[in-house]
């Protein structure tokens, strides 16, 4: 799950379009809110699990995933830690970053992308980027069998309105997240801060 949050975060940044120089295009200029629909197909679930809610990200590197259905849950990734709060059960977790591998893998990928350090990513993943008039597609395939992922695929339409992130884990579990831009602007900073406070229990 921690890895997934991070990858969704990656998708948020990537939805701005990677172009010829993906590293340069990763920087958000203002907070953004996306609505999402998530479908998880796990071996331990008889039928796929579906969730939906909002993703909020800011240029400081914070991502909040506010799940509204099937029940309200807040998950957040700040540069220092991952937060989880389930109001129904009252469960609240804080996991420091960098967390031990494999949990750290996602954040490591993200950090390297944010630094524009594609060289480091290419040491562990084969990176394929394609773009045509329909949209764009970024594919990361791990070079080592130790990676928690079998494949990570991010694709977006040419208009930059809808993106889909597909994460296939080594055991075959698959998560598909569809995202559409909902709102953007500095007013979202307040929402992000409030959700972080709630996740922290402050």
């Amino acid at each position, binding site marked *: *799950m*921690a*890895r997934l*949050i991070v990858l969704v975060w990656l998708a948020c940044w990537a939805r701005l379009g990677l172009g010829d120089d993906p590293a340069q295009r990763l920087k958000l200029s203002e907070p953004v809110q996306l609505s999402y629909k998530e479908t*998880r197909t*796990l*071996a*331990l*679930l*008889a*039928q796929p*699990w579906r*969730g939906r809610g909002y993703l909020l990200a800011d240029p400081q590197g914070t991502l909040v995933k506010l799940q509204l259905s099937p029940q309200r849950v807040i*998950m957040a990734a700040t540069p*220092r*830690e*991952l937060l*989880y709060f*389930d109001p129904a*059960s009252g*469960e609240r*977790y*804080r*996991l*420091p970053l*960098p*967390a*031990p591998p*494999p*949990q750290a893998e996602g954040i490591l990928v993200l950090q390297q992308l944010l630094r524009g350090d594609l060289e480091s990513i290419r040491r562990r993943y084969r990176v394929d980027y394609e773009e045509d008039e329909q949209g764009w597609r970024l594919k990361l395939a791990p070079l080592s069998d130790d990676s*928690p992922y079998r494949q990570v695929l991010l694709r977006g339409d040419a208009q930059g309105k809808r993106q889909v992130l597909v994460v296939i884990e080594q*055991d075959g*579990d698959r998560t598909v997240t569809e995202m559409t831009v909902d709102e953007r602007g500095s007013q979202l900073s307040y929402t992000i801060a409030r959700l972080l406070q709630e996740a922290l229990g402050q």
Partner: protein
Amino acid sequence: MKWRLGSLALLAIMLGWWVGHIHLETRLSVFFLGSEDPAARLVERFQRSVFARRYLLAIEAEGKGQAGLPAIADRFLEQLAGVPGVASAWPAFRPPFSLPDLMVAYAPYAPLIYSLDPSREAPALFSPADLAKRAQGLKRALLSPFGDLIQRIAPRDPLLLSLRAFSDWKDTLKGPARSARDFYPILLETRFDPFDVAHQRDLQRQLQEIFAQLAQNQGGSWRLRMTGVPVFAASAEQRVRRDVTRVSVASSVGVTAVLLLLFRSWKILPLLVLVLGFAFSAGGLVTQWVFGNVHALTLALGTTLIGVCVDYPIHLLAHCRAGRSAVQVAARLGPALTMGAMTTVIGYLALAATGYPGFQQVAVFAATGIVVALLATLTVVPLWSPGAGGRGPLIQPFDPWLRWCGRHRRWTLMVLGVLTLLAMGALSGLRWLDDLERLAGIDPLLKAEDRELRQRLGGVEPGRAVLVEGRKMETALKRSEAATRILRRLKSGGELSAFHGLYPWLVSRQLQRSNWEAYRQAVTQDFVVAWQRALLGQGLNSEVLGLQLPDSRPERWLPPEGAADTPLEEILPGQIDSNEDGVQLALWLGPHDAQAVSKALAGLDGVRYFSQRERINQLAAEYRQRAMMTLSFGVGVIMILLLLRYRSLGNALRVLTPAVVGLVFVFASFAALGQPVSFFQLIAAMLAVAICVDYGIFFFERRAGDARDTYRAMGASMLTTVAAFAALGLADNPALEALAVAVSGGVVGGYLICPLVIAGDEGPKVGHAH
């Protein structure tokens, strides 16, 4: 000539053997606790464990709001990997082993380990009515941040029973509650022995250098703090070595200065060095032979022997006059010197009788040294100074006092009597100090640093534990499980913040059997079907997560060494020990209410609450009581020896009284000044009595001179003794300081009182030369 060369050759061999074979011990705990006491055994086990090889490092930003701490910490961790002697280093908030992987390894054993009290917990745990809720919880867990872990555990343990077993470790899995914004703790494990001070000090220097370079490169103001057993060991070793050097140099210089001042001659020094050489090398060799090592503090205390041992050759040389050869003087003085040496040896042997480990060494070292110094005085000194070249001290600072005592003895004695009564009255105000930690003189700055860093990390408190003993592992585990049940209760009640027990890493066979039986009775065919329905109700895969009907016996028991590949030494550092007495287990405690923990554990067989500090202080109180008994017993033995020699109670009392009265004044001074008294001062009192009695004997017998000559020679002895013991006062170690004050004060007091209690014309004057 050949005897002279022979004596030199013997000394050279002894010194050579000494240098080649002495193993110098610097651990303070060995001197203050020894290795027999349970406290000492725990400390030693702790010192052997990986715990002791670990440093707790912390990186801090010195400026407020300074960013970049994780970055500098990461680079520091990267560089640590390449430092020789570093086995591993990791952020303290992340254990060096993968707890999730281990939990997965324990999942197949879930029906054997799920509860510490299955008979009480099983009915609620396996209630069919709650199965729908449990399935819901399983689904929620699958979708939580720990979903990856649950996915690995659930197929082997669908009811997630093993998670209950690991509930004490939940905090570790969740990570620290605080952010690493301004404080980044790192644990570093070294390959070196924690007491390999040379390597540890070198490592500490390298860590500081690497960090300083990184901080410079990164910019900003950063600080690296460190604590851990190796840090204390390096500091203690440095302090002990400094004390030894300082005390031995000061003692040697002091005694030499006193001798030169009194005798105005260099000629006497080589002979004294010869006698001391024999005394020290013999003391060191015998100590090494008996104990297998020589503690540095023994050497520091041993240097006081300089002051005691030079008395014998001084007396001998002071009485070598025209017409008397050294051999003749040695023969005449022999009995008195032997008597004096015996009383001193009794004093030092009394140290051993206190049971105090460090002083047992000192006693052996000193007793051997004194006996050998006496033998060297009577046999070797006459070889080198055969003629009548000796002379008494040229400066007689105490002659006026001797004259005063001769003229006004009666009323001075009365004043002394009144003062003694007053001093005895003041003794009731004595305060006792039973804090061995204070007496050990551990660097207070290091202690404060250690306390602060550990508090911020919120881990276990070193030195406080629940100790469990059993003849066999199974017994010890059963007892430890009983203790863990109580600790869990205390934790939920807020009286204990955390603890590191052995459950569920190691589980007794009896508990495994109880768990299995309860599980087997609960998981019936109906239960299996109900669970299947609950899974389907939550949309969970019942094929993977379904339950099987349990057999009469489990497929396999959890082995005594834990599940496969469990790094027990990493997970349970220093917590398991076994020897011929049985198995000892330690459950480390976090911050807690000592009284509540101790009370709650009372009555459990083979289980006891242990606080190193409290145990040490209890030991100090025991040592003090024993020291009191030893002091009384030692004085009694000396009195008997004096009675046997003089066959008169009055004479024996006269000889002994100066020493005892001198001490009464010293202790009265402590009481008046509000200076707390530890058993070190009591031990010092015994030593002072043993040394002072010599003066009484010499002054009473005056075998080779008149009262004035004898008193002068005694004055020289007293000053050298005081110079040697006063040098202990220069040590940083408070125990050595205590000895310095008490012995020096007692010896000076005893010396001054001698001519008051023993009149100049009294005594048997056996073998008077004139």
